[in-house]
């Protein structure tokens, strides 16, 4: 236990003093402030509904500029990758790994300590950014968040941390399997790019092959449903869907079908859901994200425990 705590504090201190952390923090903060600024301008110019107006700061996109939420969906993976891509292989190549492992600690203390320190770093980074950005927004729109909005933001932060932990777990996985730091960084980035750019294309392709969208509404809906299902393989989409539900209380479902049905008839009142109901909707998504993280971590763990530790 004391080995784990020692590794944890050292890695935590390291994470915070690294240049890459400071650069990413500034980058995400700037993008966030910018997005919130535009969103606040839009919100103040068109007064529609004052319900959950503070949350709308985070989800409103202003014209060409994406919303804060979209920035988070894109940037959190980079933060996770930056914290994990050289976790093990840089220690191996610099010769510190064999020295640390010859100390009386369990081998898993090293990997657990690094992982936990990374998770805490991500949580602190996201929380401080949301607080800073929220402060800017608050000053501009002048409507303080209600208690439910605060709770929803906390749920959003927790989900984002799990999402970041997944990407860090993936990067650590590569840092164990690939001996060179550059290779493992590129491998993680490649996966990130794949999910951002190619996932929707592939999903469209598969949906088209399985159920070509024809003339009828039914076939179009079916095709769209399949496309969404395939897209959900991507943790990016999973995360995006989950946080949209959390930050837009009016979202009742993530399926295409119900949305299409609900729209023309408008028999449903656009009443917001309670937080509990929203959480129920995102629950499967959250579980999947946590499971993905656990799988990455478990594979890393098994590989690392059986690894031959040589200095050369």
């Amino acid at each position: 236990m004391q080995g784990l705590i020692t590794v944890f504090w050292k890695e935590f201190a390291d994470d915070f003093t690294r240049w890459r952390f400071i650069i990413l923090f500034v980058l995400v903060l700037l993008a966030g402030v910018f997005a919130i600024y535009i969103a606040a301008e839009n919100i103040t110019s068109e007064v529609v509904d004052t319900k959950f107006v503070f949350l709308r700061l985070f989800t409103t996109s202003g014209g060409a500029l994406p919303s804060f939420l979209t920035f988070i969906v894109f940037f959190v993976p980079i933060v996770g990758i930056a914290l994990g891509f050289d976790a093990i292989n840089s220690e191996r190549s610099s010769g510190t790994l064999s020295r640390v492992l010859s100390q009386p600690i369990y081998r898993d203390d090293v990997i657990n300590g690094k992982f936990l320190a990374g998770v805490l770093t991500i949580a602190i980074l996201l929380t401080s950014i949301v607080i800073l950005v929220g402060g800017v927004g608050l000053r501009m729109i002048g409507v303080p968040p209600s208690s439910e909005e605060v709770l929803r933001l906390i749920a959003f932060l927790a989900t984002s941390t799990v999402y970041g932990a997944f990407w860090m777990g993936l990067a650590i996985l590569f840092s164990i399997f690939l001996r060179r730091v550059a290779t493992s960084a590129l491998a993680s980035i490649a996966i990130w790019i794949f999910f951002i750019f190619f996932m929707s294309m592939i999903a469209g392709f598969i949906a088209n092959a399985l159920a070509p969208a024809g003339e009828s509404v039914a076939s179009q809906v079916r095709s769209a449903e399949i496309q969404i299902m395939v897209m959900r393989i991507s943790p990016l989409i999973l995360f995006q869907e989950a946080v949209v539900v959390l930050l837009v209380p009016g979202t009742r479902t993530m399926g295409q079908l119900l949305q299409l049905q609900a729209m023309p008839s408008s028999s449903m009142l656009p009443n917001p859901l309670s937080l509990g109901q929203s959480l129920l909707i995102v629950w499967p998504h959250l579980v999947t994200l946590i499971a993905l993280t656990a799988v990455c971590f478990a594979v890393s763990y098994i590989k690392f425990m059986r690894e031959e530790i040589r200095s050369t």
Partner: protein
Amino acid sequence: MRPVVETVDLTKTYGNATVVDKLNLRIEEGDIFGFLGPNGAGKTTTILMLLGLTEPTSGVARICGYNSTRDPLKVKRLSGYVPEKVGFYEDLTAAYNLTYTARLNGLSEELVMKRVGEALDIVGLSEVGGHKVQEFSRGMKQRLAIADILIKMPKVAFLDEPTAGIDPEGVKEMLGLIARIAREQKMTVILSSHQLPQVQQICNCVGMLIKGRMVVEGKLDQLERDAFGGGRFRVEVQLAETTSALVNCIKRIKGVIGVEKSGDLLLVTCQEDLRPQIAKVIVDNNGLLVQMKIQSYALEDIYMKYFSEA
């Protein structure tokens, strides 16, 4: 007495290649053991198995009676290890690197500070303790590595090629340091190297590993005799004038097995160190003794002999 380091039929295979082959090793407390062998002979693998960092395919490795595979934590608490390519966190200070090691060993905070200061003192780096390791030369890093094992005051220290890549002056200092620490801290030291003259300087026993087999092992002086004299002593005698009468007189000394003439030297083979008796005989027979010494061999000669046999 229980040996500090012991292996029983220790074997490690990778696929079809046997890297360490049924190794039986015993190292007593306080020894400085020189672990010799060409590159790829299995020295590092053996050390890793002893430390519990690599699992043996079969056989047992024990340190102070603890099984390295089953009790790795106890073994690691008792032994210090300097890997061949030792590394430190370059962007942290030397003192912080040592502090980290001390904390990983679970020392109390006051003890941490005390040990770090002492260790830096012993290796002569106390003035640069606050400097980042990236400013250090190779020799300084190597000394820092010694400080790193001093932190936990181990009973056994494994030094894998501790002198690789440092200049002759640094090597001398390093070896002096290792010998001094071993003496002062009553530490058993296992030193792997292929630089033979160095091993000879500070080790009192050696083991020679070739292709995973221990071809020879024992006290250094015993080894020399085994290798060349069949376990006997050879005395070189130089006389101002060699007469056959004198040779016959020497042959008659009790314990002398044979006398050979080579150039102006007489090579006397005997069962024990008979130098005083030989000197007395020469003087009694009015011979003029120029010099006389026990023939010694460099470790290199021994090494080459076994290496060519294997």
